[in-house]
């Protein structure tokens, strides 16, 4: 198992190098010279050339990439072209906000989707199933910026229970953005849970358990759900990775200073070090989450664990 983990961790290195190169290449071909983000329209050609040199924009794409990688290997992600601040430091300022929002969002999503998915599957084609699926459809089809504004109007403006944005009020601040992002994820995960449960629920071993008189609640919780978990965990992993990358719309509506907004703002300003640094770090984070998900697979399903041990 440990060898597997180390192997997966080593695989992170080429992934990060590739991500950095792809971002560098994309930013290189994108319209808009980064130099003009930091000089005025009155800059002379000499000034522009000097600024380009200072920003490390001289040389071919490959040369610049290797210069960046050299810094990256020592933990130096460079300095923002615009704010002149250390990219790593800026990223680390935003990361706790994103992590906190991601965790609470996933708790909300799981808290809604698992029970709702089970209820829908167990009561297939009943009114409960229909209501659950309608709720899931609503969650999927509602744009989250719109849902966010709606929640703000109700819970902040009308009822005055929760702040409309920012993060100064601790857990109270996180409820609305987490629910906004979580609602969409919950809808998707509800459908996955339902379909996964439906696959399992018809298996012979459950029929056998029922015939042996095992209570239905125990059958669902211990036998059906556990076996249905693998696809649910997969979906969870993918969704968690997405949330870690930042939900730009929700972050914008709730003025939540997360990684997503950092990246989008940096792209708008052609701030290549910030874009590259933030995305490399996010890639690393996502890779680690995926690894953790794989490890969870092993604990949920002994068959998978036995493969790792081999």
């Amino acid at each position, binding site marked *: 198992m440990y060898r597997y983990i180390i192997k997966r961790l080593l695989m992170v290195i080429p992934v990060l190098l590739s991500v950095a190169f792809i971002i560098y290449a994309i930013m290189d071909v*994108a*319209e*808009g*010279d*980064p130099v*003009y*983000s*930091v*000089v*005025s*329209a*009155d*800059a*002379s*050609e000499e*000034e522009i050339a000097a600024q380009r040199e200072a920003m490390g924009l001289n040389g071919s794409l490959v040369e610049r990439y290797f210069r960046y990688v050299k810094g990256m290997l020592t933990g130096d992600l460079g300095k923002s072209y*615009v*704010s*002149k*601040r250390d990219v790593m430091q*800026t990223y680390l*300022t*935003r990361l706790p906000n994103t992590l906190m929002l991601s965790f609470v969002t996933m708790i909300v999503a799981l808290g809604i989707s698992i029970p709702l998915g089970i209820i829908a599957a167990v009561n297939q084609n009943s009114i409960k199933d229909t209501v659950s699926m309608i709720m899931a459809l609503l969650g999927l089809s509602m744009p989250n*910026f719109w849902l966010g*504004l709606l929640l*703000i*109007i109700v819970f*902040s*403006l009308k009822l*005055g229970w929760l*702040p*409309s*944005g*920012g993060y100064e009020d601790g857990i109270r601040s996180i409820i609305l953005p987490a629910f906004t992002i979580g609602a969409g994820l919950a809808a998707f995960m509800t459908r996955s849970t339902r379909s996964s449960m439906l696959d399992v629920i018809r298996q012979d071993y459950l029929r056998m358990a029922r015939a042996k008189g095992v209570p239905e609640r125990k059958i669902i919780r211990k036998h059906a759900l556990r076996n249905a978990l693998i696809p649910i965990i997969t979906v969870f992993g993918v969704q968690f990775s997405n949330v870690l990358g930042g939900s730009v719309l929700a972050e*914008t*509506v*709730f*003025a939540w*200073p997360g990684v997503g*907004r*950092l990246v989008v*703002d940096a792209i*708008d*300003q*052609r701030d290549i070090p910030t874009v590259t640094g933030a995305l490399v770090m996010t890639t690393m984070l996502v890779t680690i989450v995926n690894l953790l998900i794989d490890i969870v697979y092993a604990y949920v399903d002994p068959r998978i664990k036995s493969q790792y041990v081999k």
Partner: protein
Amino acid sequence: MEKIKKALAFSLSLLMLLGAFGCTGGTADETSTPPPVSDATPNPESTLDVPDDVTYQDTITIGVANDITTLDPQGSNTDANMMAFILTHETLVEVDPETNEVIPGMAKSWKVSEDGCTFTFEIPDNVKFSDGTSCTASDVKYTYERARESSFTKTKVELVTDIQVIDNTHVSITIVKPSQEFLLLLAHQSMSILSEKLVTEDEFGYQIGTGRYQVEEWIPGDQISFVRSEYFYGEQAPTSRVVFRLIKEESSRLIALQTGEIDVCIDPLSTDLSYIEDDSALELIKIPNYVLLYLAINNERKGLDDVHVRKAIAYATDKASMIEVGYNGEGFVHDHWVNRGQFGWYDGLEAYGYDLEKAKAELALSPYKPGELKFRVIYNGTAKENMALVLQEDLAQIGIELELIKLETAALKGVLNDAALDYDLCLYQFTDNLGTDFTLRNQFGSYEEDGVLKKNGSNRANMKDPVYNAMIDEALVEQDPAKREQMYNDIEAYLNNIMPIVPIATSYINIGVKKGLSGVKWNGTAKHDYRYICLPVE
């Protein structure tokens, strides 16, 4: 209140005395400064509005739409940054946004030599930076010399030939030729005084100024907070902490004001203004802004190099409809070449009203037939996209085809600033209001280098006209205000005749505030002055 009145009377008397000393004292070859000098308290109305028996909120939070990008005054020219520098730094002189007069800033007085080329400033001897170190005349010299190195500030000091530190409190600045607008340039926030010691010794030393506030914490992408500087030498600000909180989404920003999470909401959606008007706890402030929206025409492009084509485009531009779709009707048609309120505004200027028949007639005077001309128009943002659609429709009616290309802001700036100047038309804006010469020179002027005329940075028309250059040079040095005004009227008429760009509109700046908020100098350039902001505790 009585105390404040007495204090004002005293300070006014003192200033009149200082002014009188400035006029009559000093060396024989010096005269008083040409621009009118107001009292030394930069914002007398605001401070007077502050009754002393009222308790004010400790912290005021301002919801802003744009993030601070740097705390180096010489490192950018965005409005968001400038508003921070007004709090943390000082300039030698300031401009009163209501009267456009130059008033004292850090310098308590100044004198101008008879030839109009040397300005001698006196700064108080107790000015301190917010870290407690003293600010002296040598810091002023350092600041202006550093300004030569930055592309954002070099044009403001390009006339300066010499800076002499006379003693700790006196510095003289010599310019190559008399300029009626030199002081206006020094009033720009990018010319805020920096500490030589701090800037040279500390990577971020530039963020420390002599202003009423100092930076408490800056979290890029989230907020920046300022606290009162304990070393400020003058009257303390009434509010101890000011926060600029970034809320990019307009509706969220307005809701934050309605819920009381912020005290000021900058630039709410124009469609949401009724929520402010209908709320008894809020107040809507509307000020006409100085941001000129215009259609930049690359005068060197084939087709656009013909004045009749440019005039045809001007006649076919339905400015009122563009304001309707772009600003939700919240704007004014702009036909002039200087900003509203600027010296030299020519009332008799003949406007190019929307008239498709005249447009067709102008096009008929050009060598091009309808259907022969096709141009690309570049722009950014949704408002300009809507305006571009109107323009496309109108120009199609006179036989000019437009291809619309929406770009991100950085990409748009890249295209406009690139030496290749690869664009035909662009919907763009010009913001600065540093004086008539600055506006006209930057937008339409050019300079000679190695015998070749090169356009100035913001000259998006790519206009290189030696006759025009001579006209603005002449007006800049003219000492007689009446003659100078006539010169600028003539320049407006000249530009109107060659139509290098199409001026389109200016709009309103809308601000929602909590009722009772006072002390802010709202500025048409969107660089609001929050030094005296205060809000009574409910």
